[in-house]
């Protein structure tokens, strides 16, 4: 005799940049089911027009982040049993703080634009003909650079940040954590320019240290401490240079 099938009560945001509303679906519950499984079940079995984004399904690509019951999460690694209460209710929406393209697909352009604006691109300090600089793995700078290097650019921290909500010019936790990685990377060719950018309006000094970024980061990174590092470094530099 098979066990009785249980169902999840799922509200999914449907719409585009201009308008939309939640639509309810009844989704069969399975063992080890993820939020991405739930969304895929709806798209494959209930409504093929549902739009969402995913790629790797194993928490590496950073494509599938959505708001789940009010919190930003990587949906491929979020188990239903972790977030659905006893009432088996789920509310799934596109990432906060980003424009909506359609349904659950948020437009990531502002997020990546700010990542680039914060100086996120690597600038080489040597050519391929130069000897490879020796970096001690145990050096303090390398430690600080390593701390943020596993960022998958899922934008969960950006969606969690209330300062981003209130201040659209603010670069946000991911871009600033990338900047902190770069200013600690001895092989980067233009670290002063990055310090300059994060000291300007919209930079690290707008952070209120609320810590939502660190709380929600699915990779257990700590953007808030990276931003605090930038604040300390820029303040020290300001007095050193007198500029």
């Amino acid at each position, binding site marked *: 005799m098979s066990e009785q099938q249980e169902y999840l009560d799922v509200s999914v945001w449907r719409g585009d940049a201009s308008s939309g509303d939640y639509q309810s679906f009844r989704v069969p519950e399975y063992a080890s089911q993820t939020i991405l499984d739930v969304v895929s079940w709806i798209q494959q079995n209930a409504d093929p027009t549902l739009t969402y984004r995913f790629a790797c399904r194993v928490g590496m690509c950073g494509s599938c982040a959505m708001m789940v019951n009010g919190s930003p999460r990587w949906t491929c690694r979020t188990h239903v049993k972790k977030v659905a209460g006893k009432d088996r209710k789920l509310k799934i929406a596109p990432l906060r703080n980003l424009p909506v393209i359609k349904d659950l697909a948020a437009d990531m352009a502002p997020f990546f634009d700010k990542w680039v604006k914060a100086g996120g691109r690597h600038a080489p300090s040597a050519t391929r003909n130069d000897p490879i600089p020796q970096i001690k793995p145990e050096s303090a700078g390398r430690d600080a650079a390593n701390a943020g290097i596993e960022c998958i650019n899922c934008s969960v921290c950006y969606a969690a940040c209330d*300062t981003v909500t*209130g*201040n659209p010019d603010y670069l946000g936790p991911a871009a600033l954590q990338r900047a902190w990685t770069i200013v600690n990377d001895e092989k980067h060719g233009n670290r002063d320019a990055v310090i300059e950018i994060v*000291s*300007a309006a919209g*930079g690290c*000094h*707008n952070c209120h240290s609320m810590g939502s970024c660190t709380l929600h980061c699915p990779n257990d990174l700590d953007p808030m401490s990276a931003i605090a590092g930038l604040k300390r470094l820029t*303040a020290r530099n*300001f007095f050193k240079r007198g500029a």
Partner: protein
Amino acid sequence: MLNIRLYLAQRISAMIMVPFVITHIAVMIYAIQGGLSAAEILGRTQGSVFWFLFYGMFVAAVSVHAAIGVRVIVSETTGLRGSALSLLSGASFLLFLFLGARAVMAVTVSA
């Protein structure tokens, strides 16, 4: 909205305020033991160069600190930005400084 200059101005003014706030509260608690009238307070503060400088610097630090705080709150809650925001922060600074200086003069300068 905040750059490093405004950030440092707010942090440094906060640091300046710490001893002022502690002294202000401590003296207040000490002075009211056994009751205190307005005339008694003014008797001690009016004509005092020390209290003039103490509250003068306190008011200056508060004006800088509060004006930058107002700038952040207004910008994040109403979306005001650019020169209008700078005008508002400048006006708040002058208002706080004027009101504070008026109070300092009344309390520390001899009638």
